[in-house]
């Protein structure tokens, strides 16, 4: 019984997250083109920063 309730709750949370994601995407689709382009460039900048951060060797803590 307990397990079934947990599954139901997990499914509900999953559905909620999915609907939130979709409404977020829908909101982004409705933005003016200029705003969308600024977000797109910021996303590219974010990706670049992540790429650089993960590819650069870690600094040695010694010295």
């Amino acid at each position, binding site marked *: 019984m307990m397990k079934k309730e947990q599954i139901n709750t997990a499914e509900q949370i999953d559905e909620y997250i999915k609907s939130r994601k979709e409404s977020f*995407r829908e909101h*982004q*689709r409705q*933005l003016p*083109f*200029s705003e*969308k*382009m*600024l*977000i*797109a*460039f910021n*996303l*590219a900048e*974010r*990706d670049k920063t992540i790429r650089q951060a993960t590819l650069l060797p870690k600094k040695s803590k010694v010295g």
Partner: protein
Amino acid sequence: MADIAKTISVVNRLINDRVIENYALGGATAVIFYTEPIATEDVDIFVQLKPGGNPFMEFQPIFDYLKDRGYGMKGEHFYVEEFPVQFLPTGKELLDEAVTQANEFQLTEEVIVRVMTPEHLVAVMLDTDGSKIICESAFFSKMMLSTRKFYTTS
């Protein structure tokens, strides 16, 4: 704040001043126009050039025009009103058709923008293996499926 309408306005002037024949937004920029923002590092503009130019320096008239108006270059991009722009040749028949048959939208009161149709975007992406961009957009994934369905049933 940077405004893409100003960039497009400069590109429209390239047609008015007879530097290029025609243009259309393509690639990720056009996808963003129809759907939600996805990461991109430049504004892709496919241009039909004036016939009779030097085939080895086909983009020179665009470069000269923009340089004369104070727009600088960095790497392969021109910075037009703060946005990095990449001018791309049409070359292929499919790209030529995509530019010629592009949709026109009123971006602001004064600025019209030409954007490749979703159908042409999918065709161009499939032709150039742009599967990454297609996968990032639910709209285009659906469109690709319906296009495939259309071609397999007709």
